[in-house]
């Protein structure tokens, strides 16, 4: 069943699938665990994450690399493929590793909170989905896990479902990320279509990447290369909160803080970045020019997000808001890194995924400790916390310095790579490309500013208004310390991390690259080093004016709401019900006439459009047509005239009598076309209908609904269109020579008392083939018909005789 294409050690299907499946199994068992162990269920969830981490570590240790796939939907060329490489392993490490810490932290943070079973179950399901995104080797599988992370994120943001703000924030994140996901799906379908043009259609990412030049050529030939790139980029940008879709991330901070640390800093928001890295070799040729479509879209988008969100972080008033904008800003940095065609860009992206996850998750846990112990998250009210929270202060300081990009901290190196890529691109291309390094430096200055501001919460004087600040429990402190330790470890030995994992992550994002690069020691003066120096100097100088900058930006945004993307989102969301309220009365009039016109008109127009599109010629037969006699023509004309007369009938009784003429003419027509059974039935039914009408009509008022000319013309036009459609359809369909095997079979055996008679008698015990078909071959159908008539009779009886017994007045 399973096949594998790999070069080093092919991934074992069961082990890789277990990494993804275990959290889901755990999620199912959570309610049981909460019932048995109550709040200690968090440790059980942490154990599940630990097992996943162990399995991922084992895959990494054995140097597993490649794709393994099992059949899923073979008719649609969709496989359940899992792919293991450096990038997949890095994201898996983050999902399971940060998972262990966050579950441990939650055991302390969620003390005494309601809805623990829901919380842990959804959080575990999220972890499984995220591992699925990281390890998916098939675009469809990737999409499914991708949307699962959106849904679990929605549930976690809305965890406090009785709060209006939570519900709004959850809805916003779902609307934005799922809408983006749909764009991405279209992009995926286009990629698979392109693969099907030149060979085997497939959704397996590794196979697509192998055929990247061919796919790019196929898409380029039909002008779909840039649209496909944009569609995929929209998916990645909404998930990774790139401008202008960044607005859902600050709102998502309504979620409990461990969720923010896990989903909205270390993992889920990395899904978009991951996708950019994963598809980079597909869209970016190895021999690409330095500013192709890929760079123009992603490097520009990333740098814009990096700068805009860094500015917004400076005006933030809430600790978590600051971190949220900062997260979007750093995701922008990673997207920009992957966006550059320069090798240094991909190195920046790959390295910063790790660095950002480490320092930002640590800072979120710190923010949670501060909020939990100091009772407030307002930046203005917090200061001098190092006296009460010394260990937390140390973690925050290390993480903030790494975030600011100060040497020798880990964040410095990834930022250097980005500066390098931006500078080299500008240097080689010149002109407007110089905006890349300039914007990168400006964004970094603001990053420096808010990083130092966050660290400053722990220094200076302790304000008197701040109440007692408790020490955090060990379960909350230990994960933060571990993440701070990770930052220090990367700081101390960046090359070791590159050799171990980041190198192969980088390799996964570059076509035809085995991976591996070296971290330069900042010893000699290079352009990126100068850019860093400018950043730090400008940041240090302007930090004195932080308060004025913060107030000025806040004032500007308050005075000019149109500058905020939220203004447009709120407007769009409010206009939906407005649009609905405006259009509903026009569509839902409550009048039969409106619905009938719409249904009939749409059907006619679609049918005619179909004929035109298919280029159907209208066959006009010579004379009356084969088999049509003069008698039949006369009968048909009389029937048509009778129908017109029904419209002009002056009273109900006259109309019903004219209607009978029409029915009788049809009966005669059936006689002429050798259908005696039809003729008999038609006559009987016609008589019954006439009697029924006459019985009812004398109880109805003489209301005939006179109509004006305008209405008659409008309805007449619609009727003519319908009539023309039917006439054309009759001509077109009867011109065809249908496959009449069944008719021939039946006809050959019909007839009595000829030699075929006995056959029919043997088959159905009758001599009239129509009767035999009705009562024998299609007996159950006829039984259904009889049932319909019986039900109609019952309904008639009920409607007429039981009026007084019902609930009606």
């Amino acid at each position: 069943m399973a096949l594998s294409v790999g070069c080093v050690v092919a991934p074992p299907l069961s082990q890789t699938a277990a990494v993804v499946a275990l959290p889901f199994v755990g999620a199912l068992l959570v309610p049981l665990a909460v019932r048995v162990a109550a709040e200690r269920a968090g440790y059980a969830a942490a154990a599940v994450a630990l097992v996943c981490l162990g399995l991922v570590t084992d895959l990494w240790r054995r140097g597993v690399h490649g794709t393994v796939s099992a059949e899923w939907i073979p008719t649609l060329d969709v496989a359940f493929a899992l792919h293991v490489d450096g990038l997949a392993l890095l994201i898996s490490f983050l999902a399971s590793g940060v998972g262990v810490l966050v579950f441990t932290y939650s055991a302390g943070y969620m003390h005494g909170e309601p809805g623990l079973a829901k919380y842990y179950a959804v959080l575990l399901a999220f972890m499984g989905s995220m591992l699925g995104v990281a390890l998916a080797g098939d675009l469809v599988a990737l999409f499914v896990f991708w949307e699962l992370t959106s849904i679990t994120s929605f549930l976690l943001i809305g965890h406090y479902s009785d709060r209006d703000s939570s519900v709004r924030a959850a809805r916003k994140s779902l609307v934005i990320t799922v809408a983006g996901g749909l764009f991405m799906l279209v992009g995926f379908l286009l990629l698979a279509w392109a693969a099907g043009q030149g060979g085997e259609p497939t959704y397996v990412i590794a196979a697509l990447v192998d055929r990247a030049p061919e796919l790019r050529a196929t898409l380029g030939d039909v002008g779909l290369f840039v649209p496909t790139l944009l569609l995929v980029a929209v998916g990645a940008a909404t998930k990774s909160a790139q401008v202008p879709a960044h607005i859902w991330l600050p709102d998502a901070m309504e979620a409990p803080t461990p969720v923010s640390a896990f989903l909205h800093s270390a993992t889920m928001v990395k899904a978009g970045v991951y996708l950019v890295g994963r598809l980079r070799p597909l869209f970016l040729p190895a021999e690409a020019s330095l500013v192709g479509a890929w760079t123009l879209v992603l490097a520009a988008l990333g740098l814009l997000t990096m700068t805009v969100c860094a500015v917004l972080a400076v005006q933030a008033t809430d600790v978590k808001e600051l971190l949220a904008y900062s997260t979007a800003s750093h995701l922008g940095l990673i997207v920009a890194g992957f966006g550059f065609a320069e090798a240094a860009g991909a190195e920046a992206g790959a390295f910063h995924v790790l660095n950002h996850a480490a320092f930002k998750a640590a800072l979120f846990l710190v923010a949670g400790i501060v909020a939990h112990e100091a009772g407030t998250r307002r930046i203005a009210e917090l200061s001098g916390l190092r006296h009460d929270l010394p260990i937390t202060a140390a973690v925050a300081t290390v993480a903030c310095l790494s975030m600011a990009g100060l040497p020798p901290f880990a964040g410095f190196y990834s930022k250097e790579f980005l500066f390098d890529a931006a500078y080299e691109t500008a240097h080689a291309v010149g002109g407007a490309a110089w905006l890349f390094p300039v914007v990168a430096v400006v964004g970094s200055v603001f990053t420096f500013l808010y990083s130092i501001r966050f660290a400053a919460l722990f220094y200076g004087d302790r304000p008197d208004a701040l109440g007692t600040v408790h020490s955090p429990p060990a379960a909350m402190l230990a994960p933060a310390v571990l993440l701070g330790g990770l930052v220090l470890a990367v700081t101390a030995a960046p090359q070791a991390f590159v050799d171990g994992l980041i190198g192969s992550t980088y390799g996964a994002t570059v076509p035809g690259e085995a991976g591996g690069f070296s971290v330069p020691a900042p010893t000699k003066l290079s352009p990126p080093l100068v850019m860093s120096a400018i950043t730090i100097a400008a940041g240090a100088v302007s930090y004195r004016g932080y308060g004025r900058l913060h107030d000025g930006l806040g004032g500007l945004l308050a005075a000019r709401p149109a500058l905020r993307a939220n203004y447009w989102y709120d407007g769009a969301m409010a206009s939906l019900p407005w649009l609905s309220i405006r259009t509903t009365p026009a569509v839902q009039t409550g009048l039969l006439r409106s619905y009938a016109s719409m249904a009939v008109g749409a059907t006619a127009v679609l049918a005619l459009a179909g004929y035109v599109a298919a280029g159907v010629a209208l066959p006009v037969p010579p004379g009356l047509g084969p088999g049509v006699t003069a008698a039949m023509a006369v009968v048909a004309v009389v029937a048509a005239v009778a129908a017109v007369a029904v419209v002009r009938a002056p009273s109900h009784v006259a109309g019903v009598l004219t209607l009978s003429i029409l029915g009788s003419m049809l009966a005669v027509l059936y006689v002429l076309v050798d259908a005696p059974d039809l003729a008999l039935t038609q006559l009987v039914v016609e008589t019954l209908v006439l009697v029924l009408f006459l019985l009812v009509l004398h109880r109805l008022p003489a209301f005939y609904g006179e109509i004006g000319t305008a209405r008659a013309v409008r309805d007449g036009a619609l009727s003519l269109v319908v009539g023309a459609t039917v006439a054309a359809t009759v001509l077109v369909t009867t011109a065809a020579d249908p496959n009449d095997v069944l008719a021939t079979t039946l006809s050959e055996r019909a007839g009595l008392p000829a030699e075929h008679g006995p056959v029919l008698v043997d088959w159905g015990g009758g001599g009239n083939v129509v009767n035999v078909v009705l009562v024998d071959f299609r007996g159950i159908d006829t039984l259904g018909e009889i049932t319909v008539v019986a039900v109609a009779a019952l309904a008639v009886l009920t409607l007429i005789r039981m009026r007084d017994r019902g609930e009606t007045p």
Partner: protein
Amino acid sequence: MTQALLALALGTLFAVGTFLVLRRDVVRVVWGVAIVGQGANAYLVTMGGFEGAAPVSGGTTDPLVQALVLTAIVIGFGTTALALVLTYRVHEENGTIDLEELGGTGE
């Protein structure tokens, strides 16, 4: 091949049926539905061709079509009867058979 005249006659039946369905008078709407049903039956019969003989005499026209239409005629009768009685009941309940008065806001 085709039957141009029959096609025109069927087109007329459908046009008239549509026009009647759009009327304010419920009885006329019922007529419209009945006429469209009749037209559909005749259309199905033309689909079978006219070059055979009656189903009891050998070499018949398509007997399958006739069986289908036979069912359709009876069902059409049920539909018409039910619609008519519903009209009666509507009149009893509301004292009117004007659709514009019954539903919507009128014009």
